[in-house]
């Protein structure tokens, strides 16, 4: 599976993104890491040019409610509505419903077992309408 792991916005904390990239790699996926401080537009263009099936967004700056929906909107505008989006970082539970309603299919907070992220990937592949613009009901109930 080709998966883009991205750090949107002004946020220099990339340990989490690198850990996730690493576990995805070790599970046999091809992970394209964007590096720090990408704009929503740059992330979407990377997903498009790399033909990625999944996009993982990491944010620890508190700007997730601004940046994540923007990325989802641009993905749909680009016709990439079948890309499956998940997020992680410092994202309070009360913020998550808004993100799910934008088409994000999982939010993983600190303390999530890495195996859970891999389970999510497998599960999401089985869901026919898990893409960001496919308006599916399903999302992953994460443990943290």
């Amino acid at each position, binding site marked *: 599976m*080709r998966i883009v792991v991205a750090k949107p916005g002004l946020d220099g904390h990339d340990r989490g993104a690198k850990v996730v*990239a*690493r576990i*995805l*790699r*070790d*599970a*046999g*996926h*091809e*992970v*394209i*890491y*964007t*590096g720090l401080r990408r704009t929503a537009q*740059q992330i979407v*263009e*990377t997903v*498009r*040019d*790399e*033909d990625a099936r999944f996009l993982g967004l990491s944010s620890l700056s508190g700007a997730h409610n601004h940046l994540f929906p923007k990325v989802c909107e641009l993905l749909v505008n*680009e*016709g*990439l509505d079948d890309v499956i989006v998940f997020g992680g970082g410092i994202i309070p539970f009360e913020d998550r419903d808004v993100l799910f309603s934008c088409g994000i299919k999982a939010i993983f907070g600190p303390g999530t077992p890495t195996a859970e992220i891999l389970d999510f990937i497998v599960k999401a592949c089985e869901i026919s309408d898990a893409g960001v613009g496919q308006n599916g009901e399903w999302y992953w109930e994460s443990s943290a």
Partner: protein
Amino acid sequence: MRGESLDLKLVSDAINGDRRSIARVLSSLENRSVSLNQIKAQFPLIFTELDTSSWSSIAITGAPGVGKSCLIDKILINWSSKGIKTALLAIDPSSPRTGGALLGDRVRITAIDDEQYKDLIYIRSIATRKSSGSAPLIVSDMVEFLSAIGWQRVIIETVGSGQSEVRCAAITDRIVVVEGPARGDGVQAEKAGLLELADAVIVNKSDISGASQHASEIKESFELGLGQTPPIILTSAISGEGIEVASSVLLELEDTGRSKRAKWRERLLAEYERKILESDKLEDILENLAIGSMSIEDALKILGDD
């Protein structure tokens, strides 16, 4: 795997420049669900109108850490400012254990972040995958497709060490070897290897001492040998020194011809390796080899008869 029907609309959209369709066609070629021959059969015209007056693909290769990605970034900026459409295929290794890969070459490419250049640049990260021997030929199909749909120059950034990377380099029209300072004394430059295949050598990190001495050693080494000495250029991706010269020289780079035989040797080996890896008898043969009921000689004989 093979024989999936070709999505004609997808290929047409890619030919018309839709980036998402380009990405998807490249994936089909990479996954071998579609072959380049299938595309050629349906769209023969785009392949016959290729401009052959100059080179279309170039490999940038060299040891890890000599600054290939940063150098390519500067070259992309230079070429884009001249209006040249360039695609970059950046190759990183797959884990032989899990098949996974971390593809991080994009991190260093800033050229595509520039609004005025981004339509002139296409970057695709490629993992060597489990069958590393077939990676070069898949890349070769991807290069040919990109050239056919109007990407004037295609750069292949190789991993930088190992035989399969030499092979990735050998499938391109031109090979550029990137070196850096403090890469050993003059004897290192004398040693055979990748340098023999070079149509140009770039000694990067010229801001660090020892770079110009290393460039002279490489030059001397070439002059002792037979044939034409390729251009040897000093650059610094950090200070920008030599970038304009390198960008212009590479655009006009001639095939030195010194490496023709060596290139064909690598292509032949790659093709042979692909033949073995894609043989439907391979699984049986491996099974028999493992339980000791077949010798390597017999296996080679069976594979050779294919």
